Protein backbone atom coordinates (compact mmCIF):
# COMPACT_ATOMS: atom_id res chain seq x y z
CA UNK A 1 0.00 0.00 0.00
CA UNK A 2 1.23 3.47 -0.90
CA UNK A 3 0.72 6.11 1.79
CA UNK A 4 0.87 9.03 -0.66
CA UNK A 5 -1.91 7.51 -2.74
CA UNK A 6 -3.86 6.76 0.44
CA UNK A 7 -3.53 10.40 1.57
CA UNK A 8 -4.78 11.55 -1.84
CA UNK A 9 -7.75 9.17 -1.60
CA UNK A 10 -8.64 10.55 1.83
CA UNK A 11 -8.20 14.14 0.64
CA UNK A 12 -10.58 13.47 -2.27
CA UNK A 13 -13.40 12.84 0.19
CA UNK A 14 -13.34 16.42 1.50
CA UNK A 15 -15.33 19.12 -0.30
CA UNK A 16 -12.51 21.58 0.07
CA UNK A 17 -9.19 21.31 1.89
CA UNK A 18 -7.28 24.28 3.20
CA UNK A 19 -4.38 22.29 4.60
CA UNK A 20 -2.08 19.67 3.21
CA UNK A 21 -2.64 16.24 4.72
CA UNK A 22 0.43 14.36 5.97
CA UNK A 23 0.72 11.00 7.76
CA UNK A 24 0.81 12.92 11.07
CA UNK A 25 -2.33 14.97 10.41
CA UNK A 26 -5.15 14.38 12.88
CA UNK A 27 -7.89 14.14 10.27
CA UNK A 28 -10.63 14.59 12.86
CA UNK A 29 -9.33 18.12 13.55
CA UNK A 30 -9.17 19.12 9.88
CA UNK A 31 -11.67 21.81 8.90
CA UNK A 32 -14.42 20.21 6.84
CA UNK A 33 -14.25 16.80 8.56
CA UNK A 34 -17.84 15.71 9.23
CA UNK A 35 -19.64 12.44 9.86
CA UNK A 36 -20.54 12.47 6.15
CA UNK A 37 -16.85 12.69 5.16
CA UNK A 38 -16.18 9.82 7.58
CA UNK A 39 -18.75 7.70 5.73
CA UNK A 40 -17.20 8.65 2.40
CA UNK A 41 -13.77 7.58 3.69
CA UNK A 42 -15.25 4.22 4.78
CA UNK A 43 -16.77 3.80 1.31
CA UNK A 44 -13.48 4.77 -0.35
CA UNK A 45 -11.58 2.19 1.73
CA UNK A 46 -14.12 -0.44 0.73
CA UNK A 47 -14.00 0.44 -2.98
CA UNK A 48 -10.25 1.10 -3.36
CA UNK A 49 -8.82 -1.42 -0.87
CA UNK A 50 -11.61 -3.98 -0.54
CA UNK A 51 -11.71 -3.56 3.24
CA UNK A 52 -14.86 -3.02 5.30
CA UNK A 53 -13.71 -0.96 8.30
CA UNK A 54 -15.42 -1.95 11.55
CA UNK A 55 -16.75 1.34 13.02
CA UNK A 56 -15.40 0.68 16.50
CA UNK A 57 -11.85 0.20 15.11
CA UNK A 58 -12.10 3.26 12.87
CA UNK A 59 -13.20 5.31 15.91
CA UNK A 60 -9.86 4.59 17.61
CA UNK A 61 -7.81 6.18 14.82
CA UNK A 62 -6.95 9.85 14.73
CA UNK A 63 -4.02 10.39 12.40
CA UNK A 64 -3.86 9.47 8.74
CA UNK A 65 -0.99 7.11 9.58
CA UNK A 66 -3.14 5.26 12.13
CA UNK A 67 -5.95 4.93 9.63
CA UNK A 68 -3.51 3.75 6.97
CA UNK A 69 -2.01 1.19 9.37
CA UNK A 70 -5.48 -0.08 10.23
CA UNK A 71 -6.34 -0.58 6.56
CA UNK A 72 -2.92 -2.15 5.85
CA UNK A 73 -3.35 -4.56 8.78
CA UNK A 74 -6.54 -5.89 7.23
CA UNK A 75 -5.06 -6.58 3.82
Amino acid at each position, binding site marked *: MDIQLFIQNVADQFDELNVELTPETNFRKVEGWT*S*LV*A*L*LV*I*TMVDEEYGIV*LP*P*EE*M*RKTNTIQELFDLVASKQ
Partner: protein
Amino acid sequence: MHNPFALIGKTILVTGASSGIGRTIAIECSKLGADIILTGRNESRLQETLSQLKEGQHKYIVADITIEEDIITIVEQLPTLTGCVHSAGILGLVPIQAITKAKINEFEQINLHAPILLTKQLLKRKKLAKNSSVVFISSAAGVYRVSTANALYAVTKSGLDAFMRSAALELASKNIRFNSVNPAMIETEALSNIPISEEQKNANLAQYPIKRYGKPEEVAYATIYLLSDASAWTTGTEIKLDGGLTLS
Protein backbone atom coordinates in the same frame (compact mmCIF):
# COMPACT_ATOMS: atom_id res chain seq x y z
CA MET B 1 -57.99 -12.90 33.49
CA HIS B 2 -59.52 -10.80 30.73
CA ASN B 3 -56.84 -9.87 28.19
CA PRO B 4 -57.91 -8.38 24.84
CA PHE B 5 -54.30 -8.68 23.60
CA ALA B 6 -54.00 -12.43 24.18
CA LEU B 7 -52.63 -14.48 21.28
CA ILE B 8 -53.83 -17.90 22.43
CA GLY B 9 -54.64 -20.16 19.49
CA LYS B 10 -52.73 -17.98 17.00
CA THR B 11 -49.95 -19.27 14.77
CA ILE B 12 -47.51 -16.55 13.78
CA LEU B 13 -44.59 -16.51 11.33
CA VAL B 14 -41.78 -14.11 12.34
CA THR B 15 -38.99 -13.22 9.88
CA GLY B 16 -35.71 -11.82 11.21
CA ALA B 17 -36.36 -13.93 14.31
CA SER B 18 -32.67 -14.74 14.83
CA SER B 19 -31.84 -11.27 16.17
CA GLY B 20 -32.90 -7.94 17.60
CA ILE B 21 -36.49 -6.82 17.18
CA GLY B 22 -37.71 -10.00 15.45
CA ARG B 23 -36.31 -12.17 18.24
CA THR B 24 -37.98 -10.05 20.93
CA ILE B 25 -41.30 -10.09 19.07
CA ALA B 26 -41.18 -13.90 18.89
CA ILE B 27 -40.45 -14.18 22.61
CA GLU B 28 -43.15 -11.70 23.68
CA CYS B 29 -45.78 -13.30 21.40
CA SER B 30 -45.02 -16.72 22.89
CA LYS B 31 -45.62 -15.30 26.37
CA LEU B 32 -49.14 -14.35 25.27
CA GLY B 33 -49.87 -17.87 24.08
CA ALA B 34 -49.03 -17.85 20.36
CA ASP B 35 -47.33 -20.68 18.48
CA ILE B 36 -44.37 -19.21 16.60
CA ILE B 37 -42.58 -20.18 13.41
CA LEU B 38 -39.20 -18.47 13.34
CA THR B 39 -37.20 -17.80 10.22
CA GLY B 40 -33.76 -16.37 9.40
CA ARG B 41 -30.49 -17.56 7.84
CA ASN B 42 -28.44 -18.23 10.98
CA GLU B 43 -29.50 -21.59 12.42
CA SER B 44 -27.68 -21.36 15.74
CA ARG B 45 -29.19 -17.96 16.45
CA LEU B 46 -32.65 -19.28 15.53
CA GLN B 47 -32.12 -22.14 18.00
CA GLU B 48 -31.15 -19.58 20.62
CA THR B 49 -34.44 -17.72 20.03
CA LEU B 50 -36.37 -21.00 20.10
CA SER B 51 -34.87 -21.84 23.49
CA GLN B 52 -36.11 -18.51 24.87
CA LEU B 53 -39.76 -19.01 23.84
CA LYS B 54 -42.39 -19.85 26.38
CA GLU B 55 -43.80 -23.38 25.84
CA GLY B 56 -45.96 -23.95 22.76
CA GLN B 57 -45.83 -25.53 19.31
CA HIS B 58 -42.87 -23.58 18.01
CA LYS B 59 -40.38 -24.36 15.24
CA TYR B 60 -37.88 -22.66 13.00
CA ILE B 61 -37.14 -22.74 9.27
CA VAL B 62 -33.68 -21.70 8.01
CA ALA B 63 -34.00 -19.62 4.84
CA ASP B 64 -32.55 -16.66 2.97
CA ILE B 65 -35.64 -14.69 1.99
CA THR B 66 -33.77 -12.69 -0.65
CA ILE B 67 -33.96 -15.95 -2.66
CA GLU B 68 -37.40 -16.64 -4.11
CA GLU B 69 -37.02 -20.45 -3.93
CA ASP B 70 -36.28 -20.14 -0.22
CA ILE B 71 -39.50 -18.15 0.26
CA ILE B 72 -41.46 -20.89 -1.50
CA THR B 73 -39.74 -23.52 0.65
CA ILE B 74 -40.81 -21.69 3.81
CA VAL B 75 -44.39 -21.22 2.66
CA GLU B 76 -44.81 -24.85 1.58
CA GLN B 77 -43.89 -26.00 5.10
CA LEU B 78 -46.29 -23.66 6.88
CA PRO B 79 -49.58 -24.50 8.52
CA THR B 80 -52.36 -21.93 8.07
CA LEU B 81 -51.27 -18.73 9.79
CA THR B 82 -53.25 -16.23 11.79
CA GLY B 83 -50.38 -13.77 11.88
CA CYS B 84 -47.15 -12.81 10.13
CA VAL B 85 -44.47 -10.34 11.24
CA HIS B 86 -41.89 -9.09 8.74
CA SER B 87 -38.87 -7.99 10.76
CA ALA B 88 -35.95 -9.13 8.58
CA GLY B 89 -34.11 -6.11 7.27
CA ILE B 90 -30.84 -4.23 7.15
CA LEU B 91 -29.81 -0.75 8.27
CA GLY B 92 -26.81 1.17 6.98
CA LEU B 93 -25.57 4.63 6.11
CA VAL B 94 -24.64 5.31 2.47
CA PRO B 95 -23.98 8.90 1.36
CA ILE B 96 -25.65 9.60 -1.99
CA GLN B 97 -22.37 9.92 -3.86
CA ALA B 98 -21.35 6.48 -2.58
CA ILE B 99 -24.50 4.76 -3.88
CA THR B 100 -23.92 1.90 -6.32
CA LYS B 101 -26.35 -0.38 -8.14
CA ALA B 102 -25.12 -3.21 -5.90
CA LYS B 103 -25.95 -1.20 -2.75
CA ILE B 104 -29.43 -0.38 -4.06
CA ASN B 105 -30.05 -4.06 -4.72
CA GLU B 106 -28.72 -5.08 -1.32
CA PHE B 107 -31.17 -2.78 0.50
CA GLU B 108 -34.14 -3.42 -1.74
CA GLN B 109 -33.84 -7.20 -1.82
CA ILE B 110 -34.17 -7.71 1.91
CA ASN B 111 -36.11 -4.63 3.04
CA LEU B 112 -38.64 -4.46 0.21
CA HIS B 113 -38.65 -7.37 -2.24
CA ALA B 114 -38.55 -10.08 0.44
CA PRO B 115 -41.66 -8.92 2.37
CA ILE B 116 -43.56 -8.29 -0.88
CA LEU B 117 -42.74 -11.70 -2.37
CA LEU B 118 -43.38 -13.52 0.91
CA THR B 119 -46.80 -11.86 1.15
CA LYS B 120 -47.55 -12.89 -2.41
CA GLN B 121 -46.68 -16.54 -1.73
CA LEU B 122 -48.67 -16.61 1.53
CA LEU B 123 -51.73 -15.39 -0.35
CA LYS B 124 -51.25 -17.54 -3.42
CA ARG B 125 -50.89 -20.69 -1.32
CA LYS B 126 -53.78 -19.65 0.95
CA LYS B 127 -51.70 -19.71 4.12
CA LEU B 128 -53.29 -16.63 5.68
CA ALA B 129 -56.51 -17.44 7.50
CA LYS B 130 -59.52 -15.14 7.40
CA ASN B 131 -59.15 -12.57 10.19
CA SER B 132 -55.36 -12.90 10.11
CA SER B 133 -53.02 -9.97 10.67
CA VAL B 134 -49.79 -9.07 8.89
CA VAL B 135 -47.36 -6.61 10.49
CA PHE B 136 -44.37 -4.98 8.80
CA ILE B 137 -41.54 -3.60 10.94
CA SER B 138 -41.01 -0.46 8.92
CA SER B 139 -39.36 2.71 10.26
CA ALA B 140 -39.85 6.36 11.08
CA ALA B 141 -37.21 6.89 8.39
CA GLY B 142 -38.65 7.42 4.94
CA VAL B 143 -42.21 7.52 6.27
CA TYR B 144 -42.04 10.47 8.72
CA ARG B 145 -38.54 11.88 8.29
CA VAL B 146 -35.28 11.54 6.42
CA SER B 147 -31.70 12.02 7.57
CA THR B 148 -28.27 12.36 6.03
CA ALA B 149 -26.74 9.27 4.40
CA ASN B 150 -29.91 7.28 4.97
CA ALA B 151 -31.50 7.63 1.53
CA LEU B 152 -31.39 3.98 0.46
CA TYR B 153 -32.90 2.78 3.72
CA ALA B 154 -35.57 5.51 3.63
CA VAL B 155 -36.51 4.57 0.06
CA THR B 156 -37.07 0.93 1.03
CA LYS B 157 -39.15 1.79 4.09
CA SER B 158 -41.38 4.31 2.31
CA GLY B 159 -41.86 1.70 -0.42
CA LEU B 160 -42.83 -0.85 2.20
CA ASP B 161 -45.32 1.62 3.64
CA ALA B 162 -47.01 2.03 0.24
CA PHE B 163 -47.11 -1.74 -0.15
CA MET B 164 -48.64 -2.18 3.32
CA ARG B 165 -51.48 0.25 2.56
CA SER B 166 -52.07 -1.28 -0.90
CA ALA B 167 -52.31 -4.77 0.57
CA ALA B 168 -54.66 -3.54 3.31
CA LEU B 169 -57.05 -2.26 0.66
CA GLU B 170 -56.76 -5.24 -1.66
CA LEU B 171 -57.24 -7.90 1.03
CA ALA B 172 -59.82 -6.15 3.19
CA SER B 173 -62.65 -8.14 1.62
CA LYS B 174 -60.98 -11.32 2.91
CA ASN B 175 -60.60 -9.72 6.33
CA ILE B 176 -56.82 -10.03 6.23
CA ARG B 177 -55.33 -6.95 7.90
CA PHE B 178 -52.02 -5.25 7.05
CA ASN B 179 -50.38 -2.66 9.32
CA SER B 180 -46.91 -1.49 10.22
CA VAL B 181 -44.91 -0.44 13.25
CA ASN B 182 -42.61 2.49 12.50
CA PRO B 183 -39.89 2.94 15.11
CA ALA B 184 -37.16 5.54 15.28
CA MET B 185 -33.89 4.36 16.84
CA ILE B 186 -34.17 1.11 18.82
CA GLU B 187 -31.30 -0.27 20.92
CA THR B 188 -30.31 -3.47 19.08
CA GLU B 189 -27.08 -5.04 17.88
CA ALA B 190 -27.70 -3.64 14.40
CA LEU B 191 -27.05 -0.15 15.78
CA SER B 192 -23.50 -0.92 16.86
CA ASN B 193 -22.64 -1.46 13.18
CA ILE B 194 -23.40 2.15 12.35
CA PRO B 195 -20.23 4.22 12.28
CA ILE B 196 -20.96 7.12 14.63
CA SER B 197 -18.87 8.47 17.47
CA GLU B 198 -19.99 8.74 21.07
CA GLU B 199 -20.47 12.54 20.66
CA GLN B 200 -22.62 12.02 17.56
CA LYS B 201 -24.69 9.47 19.41
CA ASN B 202 -25.24 11.89 22.29
CA ALA B 203 -26.17 14.72 19.90
CA ASN B 204 -28.60 12.35 18.18
CA LEU B 205 -30.09 11.25 21.48
CA ALA B 206 -30.64 14.88 22.47
CA GLN B 207 -33.16 15.19 19.60
CA TYR B 208 -35.51 12.77 21.35
CA PRO B 209 -37.99 14.56 23.66
CA ILE B 210 -38.17 11.33 25.71
CA LYS B 211 -34.44 11.22 26.25
CA ARG B 212 -33.65 7.68 25.19
CA TYR B 213 -33.85 5.28 22.28
CA GLY B 214 -36.63 2.70 22.15
CA LYS B 215 -36.43 -0.86 23.41
CA PRO B 216 -37.16 -3.95 21.29
CA GLU B 217 -39.92 -4.88 23.78
CA GLU B 218 -41.70 -1.61 23.00
CA VAL B 219 -41.78 -2.53 19.30
CA ALA B 220 -43.04 -5.98 20.30
CA TYR B 221 -45.94 -4.56 22.34
CA ALA B 222 -47.17 -2.41 19.43
CA THR B 223 -46.84 -5.45 17.16
CA ILE B 224 -48.84 -7.55 19.62
CA TYR B 225 -51.68 -5.02 19.54
CA LEU B 226 -51.78 -5.32 15.74
CA LEU B 227 -51.65 -9.15 15.84
CA SER B 228 -54.36 -9.44 18.47
CA ASP B 229 -58.13 -9.29 18.00
CA ALA B 230 -58.05 -5.98 19.89
CA SER B 231 -57.13 -4.34 16.56
CA ALA B 232 -59.71 -6.22 14.47
CA TRP B 233 -60.95 -2.98 12.85
CA THR B 234 -57.46 -1.55 12.25
CA THR B 235 -55.94 -1.96 8.79
CA GLY B 236 -53.62 0.12 6.62
CA THR B 237 -52.25 1.97 9.65
CA GLU B 238 -48.75 2.88 10.79
CA ILE B 239 -47.98 2.98 14.50
CA LYS B 240 -45.26 5.56 15.04
CA LEU B 241 -42.92 4.79 17.97
CA ASP B 242 -40.36 7.55 18.26
CA GLY B 243 -40.10 8.99 21.77
CA GLY B 244 -41.51 12.21 20.32
CA LEU B 245 -38.71 12.63 17.76
CA THR B 246 -40.91 13.76 14.86
CA LEU B 247 -43.08 16.17 16.87
CA SER B 248 -40.94 19.19 16.07
